[in-house]
């Protein structure tokens, strides 16, 4: 049986791709880029499935982070893309539910304003619940740097959102889990 028919890969994609896509989305801030990155990361894991299969999620997450870092480097040297139309001329988005609820993604929007490394630290530490050491290893930085990035990022996010917002959202999450 070749890797293409490996049911373990299929099962992994079925069960974990949504979570990984959310991570990619938070890292990139763009749904299309996130889907693109996830596909590429999964494709690489498929090509190296013998290596990846022992810890596929860690493998794919590492590839995702590496791809994001590559993108950050490339985007720094790339002309910024600007919309050609604005205001009433702009093409109206007709997304489904995801687009409609975009208005309530306040914290995601605030996250997107963080420097890329700080954003990555917040996502990996507190969304993916990775320990400091693992986050540091993924990003190729020291543990102390992870902590300082965390502190700075939280300070910025606190500035963008009031404590009330954060407390309120935590309460909402708690209610949703009951």
């Amino acid at each position: 049986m070749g890797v293409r028919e490996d049911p373990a890969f299929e099962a992994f994609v079925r069960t974990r791709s949504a979570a990984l896509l959310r991570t990619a989305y938070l890292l990139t801030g763009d749904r299309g880029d996130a889907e693109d990155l996830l596909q590429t990361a999964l494709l690489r894991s498929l090509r190296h499935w013998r290596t990846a299969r022992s810890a596929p999620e860690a493998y794919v997450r590492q590839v995702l982070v590496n791809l994001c870092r590559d993108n950050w480097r490339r985007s720094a040297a790339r002309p910024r893309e600007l919309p050609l139309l604005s205001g009433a001329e702009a093409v109206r988005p007709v997304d489904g539910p995801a687009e409609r609820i975009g208005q309530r993604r306040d914290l995601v929007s605030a996250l997107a304003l963080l420097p890329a490394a700080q954003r990555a630290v917040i996502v990996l530490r507190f969304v993916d619940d990775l320990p400091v050491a693992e986050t540091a290893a993924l990003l190729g930085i020291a543990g102390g740097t992870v902590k300082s990035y965390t502190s700075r990022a939280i300070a910025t996010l606190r500035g963008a959102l009031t404590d009330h917002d954060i407390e309120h959202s935590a309460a909402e999450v708690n209610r949703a889990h009951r």
Partner: protein
Amino acid sequence: MLIDEEAGQRIGARLRAEVADIDAPDDLIGLIRGRHGRRTAAVRGGIAIAGAAVLATAGLTLAAVSGPAAPGPVAAGTAPPAHGSGSHPAGGVASSDHSIELDGYQVKLPAGVPIRKVGAGYLVGSHATGYFAIFLERGKNLGPKLATAHGRTVHHVRVGLRSAWWVGTGRGGELWVQIPGLPATEFLVAKVLGAGETAALRFALGLAVTHVPVVHVNCSANCG
């Protein structure tokens, strides 16, 4: 530090809640296997010029040729290689330009614009209608000046697209063509306009044009 941890946990919970509605495309495995299969086929076949081809949805047709620009579809291999400075007035296109055809809409690349890779890929999802905005670097202008970035002038041309392309979710399709032996130095990014910005088209250009192959790809699965 403990305060940071607590705040971080709350922020994480809130972020998870805000993105809880995001799900991977249903056909993700198929898309990945499609890409994997195409890559494998390309390697096994030793295909140097044409790389991967069509993934899914919608009728993406792209043809890249060198030779006289003409409206409408351009037949494969009908034009000789083009040479030139690669610089034209805004909106103007010389007769020896290259042309790329996107589903019936012709985009003209100035003569001398080196092409190593020509690729088209798009992510479907946000737009009922849209435009591709094709950005060229280093003054290879195809349209009015749009913006400057890092001191470089960026020019653009807009290509209208059929609205049907942008209905649906997930990855649309991709096509890449590469001329071997030419170093890639420039890139050209096109992006569908709109608030969601989930659709993208990317081209990459190289250094020197000697010949640009004609590629004509029609969507073979999940069109429409």
